[in-house]
């Protein structure tokens, strides 16, 4: 039987207050809470990488034989995102990579495919990296409700969480859609979507799944069920026979928002954080149909609870100072060009050549003097020994900064540009940008961690590299 061997999640540090959106548009309907917003240098790929690094804590990455990236917001229409994720994680070149897209069920579709692959023996360790960064049209209900986030599951033969099985139905239905020409999600009238869609599809599929595994609603410790808004979930809970307060996993509407195809998996991760051996869990997604999973938590769940997952990502946060800043981060407002030389070229051969050091932050370690160095060298910076190196990964090494500056001249969407000299505890230095920081809090000697982020976008190429941040939690 397939199981979940590990889990991880990612929620961007930045949050936008819904009253700030309301204030910006002078709109009448007060909506409380806040939504998680990807930083200006984050997208579904970088968030998937962040959650995957959380999930793979303490796990031999070379064991991963498949990566399923799931999102409706891949930065590319044509070009795989899973391969970028696998590259950033430094996975084996033999890893099978796939993208699941197009549906709010993409996350659970990937989970189903992974379950089938493991159960059939075709794969042993499948990493499902699900991330979402949907943009709601300005001054609309979706702008209020959408949030950004990621969840990652490692599906393997023996996990502390058994995947008992799943039930799926499809429904060809336009309640919500986004064509290849649309930037924003469109939807039909909410009442139609609610009555002809969600409430007719989700409760019966949940009931079918419970019946299939001889469970009654009261046997479920936590149900992680997607809903476009918490009101609808509350209404459907009664139909499904769940006690909304005790049994429904919080959809994080007040703190994160609707993270699309990542939401039910993020809720499942949150449920796993609190789960104990013997618990039955249910996870359901909705979009052009419904996927329902039934899971049973076994012994060993406590061994994988040292993840940041949902709880530890939720707590530390930084409020986006105003709505315009959010608009600028998402590229929804054109601003005056900064008087700096523009990025007007990206070299694809150089990107390809630099895959190891550029994408997965690999440097080298001198076999003669033992000094780690970044990027890759042919002559040792310390002892000048030549071509006597072994590969060395910097991504997860402990580091502090020995110097920094806050640069207002450098072109940036979020000035000042904080530059830091990152000195690694086991040796080596990388001079790079620091993000997700409060300039007032930056001090020499402060511990930092490396994060995978986007540095440029030009002519359709998203160009990723690494930056540092203060230790998130």
């Amino acid at each position, binding site marked *: 039987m397939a199981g979940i061997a590990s889990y991880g999640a990612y929620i961007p540090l930045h949050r936008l207050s819904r009253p700030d959106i309301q204030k910006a548009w002078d709109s009448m309907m007060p909506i409380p809470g806040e939504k998680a917003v990807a930083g200006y240098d984050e997208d579904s790929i970088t968030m998937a990488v962040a959650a995957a690094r959380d999930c793979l804590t303490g796990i031999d990455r070379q064991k991963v034989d498949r990566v399923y990236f799931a999102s409706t917001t891949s930065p590319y229409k044509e070009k795989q995102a899973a391969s970028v994720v696998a590259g950033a994680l430094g996975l084996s070149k033999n890893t099978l990579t796939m993208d699941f897209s197009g549906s709010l069920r993409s996350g659970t579709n990937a989970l189903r495919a992974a379950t089938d692959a493991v159960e059939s023996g075709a794969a042993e360790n499948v990493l499902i990296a699900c991330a979402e960064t949907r943009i709601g049209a300005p001054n609309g209900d979706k702008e209020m409700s959408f949030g950004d986030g990621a969840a990652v599951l490692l599906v393997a033969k023996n996990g502390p969480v058994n995947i008992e099985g799943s039930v799926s139905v499809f429904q060809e239905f336009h309640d919500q859609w986004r064509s290849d020409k649309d930037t924003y999600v469109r939807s039909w009238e909410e009442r139609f979507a609610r009555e002809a869609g969600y409430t007719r599809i989700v409760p019966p599929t949940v009931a079918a799944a419970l019946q299939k595994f001889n469970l009654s609603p009261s046997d479920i410790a936590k149900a992680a069920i997607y809903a476009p808004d918490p009101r609808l979930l509350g209404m459907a809970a009664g139909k499904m026979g769940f006690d909304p307060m005790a049994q429904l996993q919080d959809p994080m509407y007040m703190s994160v928002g609707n993270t699309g195809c990542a939401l039910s998996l993020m809720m499942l991760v949150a449920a796993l954080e609190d789960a104990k051996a013997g618990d039955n869990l249910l996870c359901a997604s909705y979009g052009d149909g419904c996927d329902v999973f039934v899971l049973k938590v076994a012994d060993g769940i406590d061994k994988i609870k040292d993840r940041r997952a949902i709880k530890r990502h939720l707590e530390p946060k930084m409020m986006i100072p105003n709505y315009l800043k959010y608009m600028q981060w998402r590229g929804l407002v054109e601003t005056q060009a900064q008087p700096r030389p523009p990025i007007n070229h990206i070299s694809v051969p150089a990107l390809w050549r630099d895959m190891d050091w550029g994408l997965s932050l690999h440097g080298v370690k001198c076999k003669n003097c033992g000094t780690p160095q970044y990027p890759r060298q042919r002559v040792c910076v310390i002892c000048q020994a030549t071509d006597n190196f072994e590969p060395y990964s910097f991504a997860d090494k402990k580091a502090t900064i020995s110097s920094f500056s806050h640069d*207002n001249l450098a072109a940036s969407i979020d000035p000042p540009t904080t530059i830091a000299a990152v000195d690694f505890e086991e040796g080596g230095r990388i001079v790079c940008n620091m993000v997700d920081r409060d300039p007032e809090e930056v001090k020499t000697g402060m511990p930092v961690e490396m994060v995978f982020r986007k540095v440029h976008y030009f002519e359709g190429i998203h160009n990723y590299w690494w930056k540092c941040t203060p230790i998130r939690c």
Partner: protein
Amino acid sequence: MGSFKGIRDKVAIIGMGCSKFGEHWDKHQNDLIFEATKEAIEDAKIELKDIEAAWAGTWVSGFDGRCLADPLKLQYIPVTRVENACASGSDAFRNACYAVASGAYDICLAVGFEKLKDSGWSGLPDQQSVPSNRYPDRTAPGMFALMATTYFSKYGLSPEEGKRMIGMVSVKSHHNGTLNPKAHLRREVTIEQVMNAPIIAWPLGLFDCCGVSDGAAAAIVVSADKAKDYRPDPVYVKALQISVCPSEGEQRADYDFTQVKATVRAGEAAYAEAGVTNPREEISMAELHDCFSITEAVTCEDLQFSPRGKVKEDIESGFFDLTGGLPVQPDGGLKSFGHPIGASGVRMLYEMYLQLQGRADQRQLKDPKLGLTHNLGGIPISNTVSVLIIGL
């Protein structure tokens, strides 16, 4: 230094010229090259046709020997463009001197120039035709600010104390610049203005940064034994040193930003070549690469003008003022001239040359013997540094 023997007293400068530095909207670099060279050949009392070989120092304003041959209509002589970041002008001069010292030529020309104000960018333009895929926008103030952060922290200066220390460097240079008709910025500033100026790259404020300018400067060199045929007061080359850092600071965590090793090495080599054993006492005056106020402060330590960590005392006592024991930036420095990359190294030499000949007007120092120029290209973690010494 290995077996390097140097060329002390083998080459002399017989003529120099320098354009006014500034925002020359109405001038092409060819105009600036011509103006600087014209002044230099008139100073040397030679003609353009007497020049046997020439070197051009520029960062982005020209790409080969034609950048001099064309505006000066040099007649089929060898001309080479030299590029060594902000030290390009100093390196062009060095090449011209070596050509004379080798005996290959009698009269050589070195011109440093840069036309930055056609780009429209704030700060410096981008030199790379294929920019790095990975590194985000790295600016000079951003990278030099790392020096200030670490210097303050290492020597226990609060941001206020640190900014006051480097602020006094700028106050001094601005004052000297008011006395120089060729400087770009000619106004006094107060320490309060400097410290309260808008931040460019924390902790560096507007007045901690040099400006962006257009300019050119030129030098005519001949072999020392023929120098007096041209003028009674030639100035002799005592040391020409360049040290290039293998980008260690980019990778080595033991580089702490409070010194520039290439300056230390180039300085030591230059002192050895010139026979200087006590720089603080023997060097009469210096033009240092004050691209930022913190750079000048750290350079004073790197060149042994001040003991390590003690430059603050010398700054506060006025040791580097025009009236002090070792005047630094008597012409106003990059701070007042701005930094047309290729021009700056030769512009520094121009001031030392004038001072040694007693022609520095209101800025004239009393009886200088040895003048040092320090030209730093790159950033603290990766750089190319020239230290030249000239004297009577």
